[in-house]
């Protein structure tokens, strides 16, 4: 049985086309369509319901030790008010999930996990915890993402300048946004400037309407999961279940900089990653030059030899061409090289290009 987010009725009100995603009923798009929603985020601003994301608290005097042991990144120098991205590995070096970690207090961290992995992650943390306490607070928390070059201008109509975090990957907790108490985080999954606002589930609908009213004159529109996916693909952000999985290590996925092999403490998966050494395959960007749309799980060929498989792919609305991410044998990887992707029995040419496809100016 799929869950509804606190904004389900709002999505119906705004004409959202509802689909099931990660165990939640969410809009894939609204009336304006994926392309218009995508372009709104690149050029103006878009508003997303991302309440399906899971929130887990890690608390206790040993909380830092615990996150450092469970996650591959190093949190030793993460200050209160800052956020950091990290993979979480299994003992084989595969990826349990990728998450965002907020340090909200001296001995308190907020971990934001993927909706589809929420139960799995919480069970994993409970099974591997030593001293800190983990609490799944997902059902009490809503999350709205305000994304785009005009996001700050719009948010300023509802919040004081000093309640808005200045730097990317920082946040301010317990702030007033139009009378709704929020954790205001300068983060996102679109490749644009923007904010993720966490509030009590019961306040989500009010916050949504306040934000839309504040931004409508600037072109702010509601955006669905379709645009969320095309935006993150252009920005080459990994999506769990695609670029990352229990069988794909973060190093293979090109996320080696978030795996701190030299941090002082041991972490789950480190031994396996050490033994594996430099990965034999790597993430690659493919710009489709032939005719067709490349999707996930399509074989990639160099001549007659299969050299990998795509992990995500779509038409990129802002760039105006189709693109895909793939995991390729390292010796087949060279920027500028032409490969072929088998799209439903037909070979379509693509060029290996550096990631990300899109980077904001």
């Amino acid at each position, binding site marked *: 049985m799929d869950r509804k987010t606190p904004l389900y009725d709002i999505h119906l009100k705004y004409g959202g086309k509802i689909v099931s995603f990660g165990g939640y009923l969410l809009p894939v798009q609204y009336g304006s369509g*994926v392309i218009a929603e995508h372009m709104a985020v690149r050029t103006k601003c878009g508003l997303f319901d991302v309440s399906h994301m899971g929130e887990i608290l890690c608390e206790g005097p040993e909380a830092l030790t615990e996150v450092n042991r469970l996650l591959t990144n190093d949190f030793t120098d993460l200050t209160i008010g800052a956020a950091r991205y990290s993979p979480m590995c299994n003992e084989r070096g595969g990826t349990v999930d990728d998450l965002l970690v907020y340090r909200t207090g001296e001995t308190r961290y907020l971990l934001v996990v993927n909706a589809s992995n929420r139960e799995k992650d919480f069970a994993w943390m409970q099974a591997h915890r030593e001293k800190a306490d983990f609490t799944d607070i997902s059902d009490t928390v809503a999350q709205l993402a305000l994304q785009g070059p005009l996001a700050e201008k719009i948010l300023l109509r509802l919040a004081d300048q000093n309640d808005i975090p200045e730097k990317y990957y920082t946040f301010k907790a317990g702030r007033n946004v139009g009378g709704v108490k929020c954790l205001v985080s300068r983060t996102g999954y679109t490749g644009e400037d923007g904010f993720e606002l966490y509030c009590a589930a019961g306040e989500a609908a009010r916050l949504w309407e306040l934000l839309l009213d504040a931004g409508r004159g600037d072109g702010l529109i509601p955006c669905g999961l379709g645009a969320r996916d095309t935006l993150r693909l252009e920005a080459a952000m990994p999506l769990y279940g695609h670029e990352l999985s229990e069988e794909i290590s973060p190093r293979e996925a090109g996320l080696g900089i978030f795996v701190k092999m030299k941090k002082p403490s041991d972490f789950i998966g480190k031994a396996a990653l050490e033994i594996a050494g430099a990965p034999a395959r790597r993430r690659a960007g493919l710009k489709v030059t032939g005719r067709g749309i490349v999707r996930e799980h399509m074989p990639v060929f160099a001549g007659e030899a299969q050299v990998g498989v795509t992990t995500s792919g779509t038409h990129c609305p802002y760039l105006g061409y189709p693109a895909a991410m793939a995991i390729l044998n390292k010796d087949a990887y060279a920027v500028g090289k032409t490969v072929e992707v088998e799209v439903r029995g037909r070979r379509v040419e693509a060029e290996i290009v550096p990631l990300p496809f899109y980077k904001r100016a």
Partner: protein
Amino acid sequence: MNHPAELSYTKSHEWVRELDDESVLVGITDFAQHELGDLVFVNLPEVGDDVVAGEPFADVESVKAVSDVYSPVTGRVAEINEALLDAPQLINEAPYEAWFIRVEDVADTEDYLSAEDYVAFTQEEA
């Protein structure tokens, strides 16, 4: 939603326009383009290809997914609408002008629905 009375429709959401020379134009319905969302790619057969009633002859891709388009008739492709290859959004903008193929030597057809019956059918599906 708009479904012109002079056209014939299929349960797989194509429309058929019969021309004076007995060839037919085939496209997808307003309901179909609305369900698919923004179209970004179209794959069409070539002139001279045979098409078979009830079999796929083309595919359309939205940002999210690919869908087959089924031929309402058996016959031979006399003409393709090349404008769609460069501008698939024409299908979203004007689905009854954005024909995919013109088919001649029509030997067989699907069981068509009238506009009225098609509308009733889409309401059951929705």
